[in-house]
């Protein structure tokens, strides 16, 4: 919650507004995702998909994966080991 989520929301909104709907989100440095972060991710994943894009995740740690699984949204996302693989998947 707080500035971290607000900053991410702003960044994604700016990208989408600029027409960039294919987004790769690297979570390697993210120690934990809370429900507000998950809410943001699923909301933007749904909206970018409607515009022909998607949000794909790179290197979520085991705790992020556990949290996504607990609330039933893990299977909504494509997950990759590195940025290049995620970017290539949009091709």
């Amino acid at each position, binding site marked *: 919650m707080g500035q971290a989520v607000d900053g991410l929301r702003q960044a994604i909104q700016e990208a989408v507004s600029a027409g960039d709907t294919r987004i790769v989100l690297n979570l390697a440095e993210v120690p934990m995702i809370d429900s507000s972060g998950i809410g943001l991710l699923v*909301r933007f994943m749904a909206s970018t998909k409607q515009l022909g894009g998607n949000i794909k995740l790179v290197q979520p740690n085991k705790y992020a994966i556990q949290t996504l699984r607990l609330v*039933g949204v893990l299977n909504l996302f494509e997950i990759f080991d590195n940025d290049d693989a995620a970017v290539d998947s949009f091709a």
Partner: protein
Amino acid sequence: MSAESSGGPENNALSELLDVNMPADAEAVAAVVDSISETLERLEVPEQKRFEVALAVQEALANAVVHGCGNDRSKQIRCRLKSDPKGRIVIIVTDPGPGFSPELQPDPKGNENLYADHGRGVYLIRQLMDEVHFERSGSEIMMWKY
């Protein structure tokens, strides 16, 4: 994963480990969560359990800030960490708000709610902690980890 009941582990023999007040400010949450994590680490609580407690506390404090206090920084939230002789820990988060009805929370895993941008906090707490009790009409949450 968690049970809500009028009872719960006995409160009589609890040791107070932490008792902090924080303003109802989203930016104040992290410091409290870190204090709890550090305390649990000193108690040699395993990392997986520390993570689950930290996230549950984060969710409870976030709810207190947003719903209990309406993001009003002039209001205070109390967070206590206690343990019993068996090593079970309890975190109690209390806000000055009117409370809420936890049983009326929608199921975030229902198809109609899967893409919702909110409504997962209480559910997540119940999944992470072993026992959850709501007191004071919902303005206080007690979360047990065994």
